[in-house]
């Protein structure tokens, strides 16, 4: 008795054979226990794989915000490069105005990347003291100086803004299970 090869049996387990091949293989399997065992082994593979379907529990809103921000950066960088006169000369060096544009765009990316990775204090243009929440935590700005108060990598932070001039960041302490609310008040 001729047996179907491994590829045929592997495809049969997932219903991936064409109609004629499926019929022929089914007929063979009805008579051949060893091939049935082979197909059962492939079935086991298919049964275990859906474990990969699970996606971790994520903060989708925050993820979406980060992705959108980075997409904007990427598109802006693409515009920068396109705004330089194409094509580049074959010498491989970038000359003149294109160099300025390319360098400026690179600096924008580097600086922005640094800001996104490591928020730096920046001088505020506003006159009064200001408090705000960012993706990293709470920032207070006064007299041209900025203080940042981060949440130290805690996930799921709920912010609350008060029109009087305070910002609260609430999260569950992963160690103790207690809720902690950090509030910064503008005076």
């Amino acid at each position, binding site marked *: 008795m001729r047996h179907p090869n491994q590829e045929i049996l592997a495809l049969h387990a997932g219903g991936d054979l064409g109609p004629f091949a499926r019929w022929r293989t089914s007929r063979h399997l009805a008579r051949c226990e060893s091939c049935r065992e082979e197909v059962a082994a492939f079935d086991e593979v298919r049964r275990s794989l859906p474990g990969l379907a699970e996606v971790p529990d994520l903060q989708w809103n925050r993820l979406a*915000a980060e992705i959108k921000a980075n997409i904007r950066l990427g598109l802006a960088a693409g515009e920068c490069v396109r705004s330089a006169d194409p094509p580049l000369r074959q010498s491989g060096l970038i000359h003149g105005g294109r160099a300025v544009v390319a360098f400026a765009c690179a600096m924008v990316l580097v600086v922005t990347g640094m800001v996104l990775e490591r928020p730096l204090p920046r001088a505020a*243009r506003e006159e009064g003291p200001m408090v705000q929440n*960012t993706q990293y*935590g709470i920032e207070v700005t006064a007299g041209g100086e900025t*203080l940042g108060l981060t949440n130290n990598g805690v996930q*799921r932070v709920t912010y609350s803004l008060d029109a009087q001039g305070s910002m609260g960041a609430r999260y569950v302490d992963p*160690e103790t*299970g207690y809720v902690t*609310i950090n509030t910064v008040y503008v005076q």
Partner: protein
Amino acid sequence: MCNNVQNRLWLLGLLGAAGLLAQDAALPNCSVTVDVPNDAPVALLGISNAPCNATARGAALMLDLHLSLTLKNTGSNRIHGVTLRVVSQEVALGGVGSVYQPSLNVGPGEAFPVHIDTQLMRPAQLAGGPAVQVHLDGVLFQDLTFYGPDRLHSRRIMTASEMEAQRDRDYLKRLLAEQGLPALRQAMLRIQARQDSVPRLQGRVVRGHTVTTAGIAAGAPERQAQFAFLQFPDSPVEPVQGSLLIAGNEARTPVIDVRNRSGKAVKYVEFGWVLTDPAGHDYLAGSMPSTDSSFALAPGATARVRQDSTLGFSTGGQPVSIQKMTGFVTQVEFADGKVWVPNRQNLENPFLAKVLAPSIEEERLASLYVRKGIDAVAEELKKF
């Protein structure tokens, strides 16, 4: 009340050299002090080592504050909340900070931890070393009595939080009693779903001056708009009318007239805001308190609540235009110190349900569910 003798702990944190970015100058020492009055119903048992590290990051100084205090309940009542006032030269740039731990349940003689776990950033060129002072601002007990200097109005804040927590625990206990663990589990899952799905805003508030932002606000004309209001029938006060100035994504100088329809004098009112953008998306924008210390609303009287501030809103780094603002009462404090908060029926309003994040207690219990399972949540509910 505090007396003149204070327990004081001085700590010096050594500098951390990790993460330096090409800095040659020596970094200043940072220090932390913790004040707990002798007559306080809590005693400071211990404090973590190396609570403060300073590291240079380019033009900034990053202070890693990992303060773990162990406090002990030395009173005879169960403690349900603690607020610490955190003052530092850095935070004094804009004000003070506080760390509040609600939903505690600490019996007499029991010890409990309070973590101040955060990073402060400040410009490196600020003079002097970083210094952080931590003061006990308030302790709330199970029977809603309070101890502390209350400089941050922590009594009112903690009382309101505790009442909300009791409200939510009562609901969950009823759910458990009537429908069992599966229903409680479903409630935990719903809370988590809300945590993930509630739309989030980034906000900023400036006292008294306009916030200049790139984008819509920079070129947007200012217009006067009326507040819409959600009324809660059982609220002791009702918003009568309100207005604010809107310019793009900024809300300026909000004003709300409020009438006391209860039989008791009111000394504090707070409103929540829901912002609606031109596309019809709703967000919880923030809150508006009556901050005037002389605010007093006699029964039947009407008074004005006003904030001379400018709030700006964005999401994902993009300004959110304000089409409409809707206000609703979130907290009322009577002259006798009693506090009113909305009940669950008020908050289950469909308009609010999609913008309100879970309450503090809901979040705590849902987190407990994730870590320890539904049986732990049921056990926890029994403790209150």
